[in-house]
Each structure stands twice: as C-alpha cells, then as structure tokens.
C-alpha cells in the first residue's frame, strides 16, 4: 500500500508541480514499483474521465445570444444612466458657476452703487475757520545785546600747541549771549 506521502508526490509528478529534487526518486519508483505505476495509470484515467464527461445538451447559439442581450439590456442602460448623471452633474456645475460669477458681479456692482449712492447723500463739508492769536514779532524797541565770538572760556588754559582758531574753522561757531538789555 502506497503511503499518502508517496501518493501526494505521484500526483505532483502528474500535474508537473513535483520539486526537481524529488523527480529522480519518483521516476525510479515508477520504474520499479508496479503499485505506484498502477496508481498513476488510475489517476490519468480519472483525469481523462473528468475532462471528457459531457454536459447536458445546450443550444450554445441561443445561450450566447441570450447572454449578449442581457449584457446590453442590463449593463448598457446603467452605463447610459451614468453618462446621463454625468451630464446632469456637469450642467449643475455650470449652473453653479454661472450663479457664483453672477453673484460676484452683482456684489461688486452693488458695492460700486453704494459708493455712488452714498456720495450725493454726504453733506458738503463746511469750511472750518479759526482765528489764531499767537506770538507776533516784537520790535527790538531799543534793546541791545553784547555778542562775543571766540573760544569758550574753558579754552583759556589750552596748551600752546593747540590753536583755538582751528576749532572755529572745524566746528560750528559758538555764540554766547552774555547780556541783554531791553
């Protein structure tokens, strides 16, 4: 009696899925073991039986026409509905776009109209006037001031190497009012 393992390998040999490393051993077994050879013969016979067993009589032309009609009656209308809905979707999208664009235009036009309408309503601004009394130039009225131009007093004790005149040229002149008399 062949073990399940051997039978399994013999079936793999038959269907061509036997691993290559087992092939030589199985072929040797088939050549030497009558039971193994009989098992393979039976399995081939079973294959042939299953593959050639007839089906009930069927009118293939009628069946193919029936299937073809079913496909085009059931599937195609569904497709056409899809197209239909696609068109409806596109139309709805276009309508929405028109509404949006129209809305934006109206909105902008409305804004402009507001400006136009508001401007006439605004009262003309009154020109404000004010009399400002501020300081006025005063006449000297006989006042006089003594003005001294020269280096400040702190420069009196400068070393001899420093010429105070340099400062008058490089720096702004310093004017000090020493006294004022009205």
């Amino acid at each position, binding site marked *: 009696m062949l073990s*399940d393992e051997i*039978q*399994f390998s013999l*079936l*793999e040999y038959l*269907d061509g*899925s036997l691993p290559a490393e087992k092939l030589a051993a199985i072929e040797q077994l088939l050549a030497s073991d009558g039971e193994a050879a009989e098992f393979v013969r*039976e*399995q081939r*016979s*079973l*294959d042939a*039986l*299953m*593959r*050639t*067993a*007839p*089906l*009930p*009589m*069927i*009118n*293939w*032309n*009628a*069946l*193919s026409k*029936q*299937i*073809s009609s*079913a*496909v*085009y009656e*059931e*599937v195609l209308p*569904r497709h056409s509905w899809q197209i239909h809905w696609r068109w409806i979707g596109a139309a709805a999208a276009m309508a929405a776009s028109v509404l949006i664009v129209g809305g934006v235009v109206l909105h902008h036009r409305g804004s402009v109209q507001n400006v136009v309408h508001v401007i006439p309503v605004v009262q003309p601004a009154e020109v404000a006037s004010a009399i400002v009394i501020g300081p006025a130039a005063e006449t000297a009225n006989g006042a006089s001031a003594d003005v001294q131009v020269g280096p400040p007093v702190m420069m009196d004790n400068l070393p001899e190497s420093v010429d105070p005149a340099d400062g008058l040229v490089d720096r702004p002149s310093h004017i000090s009012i020493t006294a004022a008399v009205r």
Partner: protein
Amino acid sequence: MSHWMQDAEPQQTQNSAAKAAELTATTDEQLVAITLGGNRQAFDTLIQRYQRQAMAVSYRLLGNTQDAMEVTQDAFLKAFSSLPTLQTPAAFGGWLMRIVSNLSLNYRRSRKTRTQLPLADALGAATQDDATPGSEWMSRDADPLHRAESVELGAQLSKALMQLPEKQRTAIILFTIEQLPQKEVAELLHCSVEAVKWHVFQGRKRLKDLLKDYL
C-alpha cells in the same frame, strides 16, 4: 424601397459577418481592448469563446443546468461591467473563470431564489449548427450505446463531485478539469498553493472510490 436600399442590406450583413469572422481570430487581449473601445461584437466573440468553459465550471460546481446558465450569464454581465478594471487583458479567460467560480459558490451558499430569466430556450435544443468541432463538453457520439454511456458518465461525475466538500470540489474542477494555475485556484479559495494540492489530493482519493466502475 429603392433598389439601392435593397442591395445595401445584404451588403451590410456580409460586412457584419466578415467583421465577426475577423474577431474570431483575434486574441483575448485585443478583444478586450476593442470592447473597451465600444465595439459590441468584440464582447460577443468573448461570450462565444468562453461560454462553454464557463458553463462547465458552473455546472460542475452547482450540479444544475438552469442554475449554471444563470450564473454563466451573471458572470458575463459582471465581466462586462468590470472589464475596465481587468489589469491583464490577455488573462481574460482565467479572470472570467474566477468570476464564474465565485458566483457559483455564492449562489450555492445563498441558495437564493431568483426570477428565472428566459434561458430555457437554450436547453436541449442544440442543432447541428451549434456543434463545435472538437468540443470536449458535448456528447455527440453517433453510437447510441456509447452516447448513453457517456451521458451516464457525465451524470455520475456530477453526482460524485457534489459529494465532495466545497474546497475539494472547487480545487478539482478548476485545477484538474479546467487546468487553471494552482496559484489562481489558491487565490480563489483564499489558501496556499500547498493547500490546493492537498484539496486536490483528498478530492481525487474520494472520486477514485466513487467512480471506480468507470476507471
């Protein structure tokens, strides 16, 4: 009707027949592309090409001709509507068989009662024109005795398959009978390739016992 119109109709029929003949020689990949381009005849060619295999798978899984025809029709409907999602158009046949198998298994599980489509016309009324040379499915043996044996064998196989657990039956039908790749069967059954081999092994053992008189 003018003479021109009278002549135009046979011309159109001839053109249509020529186009159909041209499509018959076209590959699955090209037929899928042509169908997606909007050519109705291309899908009709795919229907004619695969309806027998689809019926065989469905019939073996369901054990009932009427149910098998409904499932086959549903499978083509599903295939047509899902065609844009088919990633490998050259593998249309295997893809369709997976749809057929899935629908058959779901049909069997749900055992839903549905409105019968007018498919009865396709049952039993095959004419000589319908016979495809070399067809493996239909018994057209001229000898009445052989024919009767063949029909009996078909019935016995169907009965034997129905006695197998679902996964063993599906693995046997798709892998052993329809010779789909083990990987595709594994995907359909949500299991490994090794598990498919195991289901086939167990199924074969059982079938050998059930059909021993015919071996």
